[in-house]
């Protein structure tokens, strides 16, 4: 079985599904730029991240710590945090 992965495209898809597209096209830029842009600058607030985390938990069958939402303020940090849970699933 292939290792489940969580990429920027996965994050974008779930953000758009759960919270809509930010005004100003903040998700559309160069991937390396988007990865290191603060969510608040992209156009997503803490509630959008809460909704996103909830959808990721459902889809991937994982439990994200509440701290992920508070600490991961950029897409890169968020993706890394989700990745950590994917490689070390609760047994």
């Amino acid at each position: 079985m292939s290792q489940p992965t969580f990429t920027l495209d996965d994050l974008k898809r779930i953000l758009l599904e759960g919270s809509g597209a930010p005004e100003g096209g903040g998700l559309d830029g160069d991937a390396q730029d988007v990865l290191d842009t603060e969510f608040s600058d992209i156009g997503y607030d803490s509630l959008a991240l809460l909704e996103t985390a909830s959808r990721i938990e459902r889809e991937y069958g994982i439990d994200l710590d509440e701290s992920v939402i508070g600490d991961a303020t950029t897409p890169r940090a968020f993706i890394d945090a989700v990745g950590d849970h994917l490689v070390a699933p609760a047994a």
Partner: protein
Amino acid sequence: MTASVVVTGLGITAPNGLGTKDYWSATRVGKSGIGPLTRFDAAPYPAKLAGEIDGFTAEEHLPSRLLPQTDQVTRLSLVAADWALADAGVRPADLPAFDMGVITASSAGGFEFSQHELKSLWSKGGEYVSAYQSFAWFYAVNTGQISIRNGMKGPSGVVVTDQAGGLDAVAQARRQIRKGTSLVVAGAVDALLCSWGWVGLHTSGRLSTADDPGRAYLPFDERAAGHVPGEGGALLILEAADAARARGARVYGEIAGYAATFDGREPGLRKAIELALTDADLAPSDVDVVFADAAAEPELDRIEAETLVEVFGHRGVPVTAPKTMTGRLYAGAAALDLATAFLAMGEGLIPPTVHTDPADHYGLDLVGTEARPAELRTALVLARGHGGFNSAMVVRS
């Protein structure tokens, strides 16, 4: 001497017209928006008619980010606020954030959104409930979203007094302007035409169970047997008269008087009217038209008609109920009546009361199915809320 507060913008979402132009062109000719309920299968319910807003596509008016977090009522409210601001020629981004407030009334909050999330909760589990449920259900959500979208950080709030709320919110806005806030978005939109909302509405025991839209909502008629619910309402831009004049704004008219009472041993409607007239420094003979609450419930119709005869005399003032074309919009209804009063004064035309054949014994000069041309300087708008709320507002052109 208290500062005069005027209305400089209108935003209307109604079952018989979306936007002020469509609404007024329908209303002045008696075009009704009441019809069979289509949002869900109403066959199992006693009441089957509603005033639904057709042709409203939120995606055409609002950014994508707002759609997953808003109920129909909030979407309508946001669009009505946008239209009202545009109508007033106001660009919120150009004004200091703390000089602008938002005060709305709400009867139910975001019911359809909540129904969806509660269904997810009980059928799939708590992890399937949207994070946005945390506020999307709430009575204050329309105020909050309008405030955020337009960067308005001044005095804001929500009033929950059923139908009377539409006037109470505008009165609260007037207070805040008199205390120094430059501009307030005020009024109400309600919308709960989902099956959960429909069940809730039935508990009032006041819904019409008629099948014929022409015989369903007949205030002051011998056949009156309840009302048809509708969705929509109006938001108004209120400003101090001096400030509006200084910026050269078009002024619809003034919020000249207001009072609210609560039913006790006696109905409080008469007291509300008398206090509102006193507040406006006007006599009953100064009132050119009354927009009635028009409950279409025999006892409530009797109280309203007797009150109007006591204050204004037998057939002493023209009375109309354009809400016979929209159904009762709860808090939205009184705000829409206020907006309609300004449009009526602007044109010199009292909009009709459709379908009703008024009973003679009520002693009312009810404007019938044809609009009536009249010089209108002063209008009185009445609204009663379930449980004993009475509000009266006097507006002047």
